[in-house]
């Protein structure tokens, strides 16, 4: 591989082949690609270019009084979305934490299977006042819902336009 560099790619694999504990594996893949000089080189990874559809103008979003970040006494600056175990932490009330969620609105995510510690997930659910689940079909999580909002499938609705970055841009 070193002989062929920089025309080398170590491919991170398709999402379906990941199993959710691959942080260090993907770090290793990125580091190897960097060491092999694959970024932005012919035969390696080509450079992506941003292309976005304009958003429709809307009033400023109201600022929430509390967010999941209140659940943590320290700053998690590198974690933009709430880390998955953080949903549990932010839900189960404890004396040392100034936050506990009362309701979850779950959109097409089977949290019983997707969050790492099922026992903790069920404990968190048992501390909620309300669960709303939006899904196209019954899942483990729909069994825990107070309210189910049944969504039509992707063959029966429009979705946001998908942009694919290739050597040219494709809009689907």
């Amino acid at each position, binding site marked *: 591989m070193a002989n062929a560099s920089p025309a080398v790619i170590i491919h991170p694999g398709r999402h379906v082949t990941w199993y959710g504990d691959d942080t260090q594996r993907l770090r290793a893949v990125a580091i190897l690609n960097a060491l092999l000089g694959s970024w932005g080189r012919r035969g390696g990874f080509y450079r992506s*270019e941003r292309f976005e559809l304009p958003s429709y103008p*809307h009033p400023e979003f109201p600022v929430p009084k509390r967010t999941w970040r209140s659940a943590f006494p320290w700053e998690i600056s590198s974690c933009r979305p709430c880390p998955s175990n953080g949903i549990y932490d932010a839900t189960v009330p404890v004396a040392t934490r100034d936050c506990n969620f009362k309701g979850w609105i779950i959109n097409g995510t089977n949290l019983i299977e997707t969050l790492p510690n099922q026992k903790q997930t069920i404990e968190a659910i048992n501390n909620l006042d309300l669960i709303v689940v939006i899904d196209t079909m019954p899942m483990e999580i729909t069994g825990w819902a107070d309210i189910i909002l049944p969504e*039509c499938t992707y063959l029966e609705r429009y979705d946001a336009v998908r942009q694919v970055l290739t050597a040219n841009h494709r809009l689907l």
Partner: protein
Amino acid sequence: MPAAEPKYDTKPAYWMARQLSLKLGLEAYFPHENLEDLLDWQLKQIGSSLDEMQRIGVKTFPRQADNLYFADNEEAEFMTNTGKKLNFYSTSFCK
């Protein structure tokens, strides 16, 4: 675009969100009655339309810049917090 009519009492997520917004007095955030109208507006901003996309399905645009690869002596910049250089370990995880 949809291949079939929705079955039973199922609805698109946009419809659910918009109906909730009407109940909550947040309709200013959902000026379009359905997602199709919003998509049509977005596509018209870039010289296409929902009507065109319904006909052609996929539209290809050329890249703005002719820079698929870094030039030989180009100072490559990356979106990292170490002065746009490649990161071999995460400085933000260290904090």
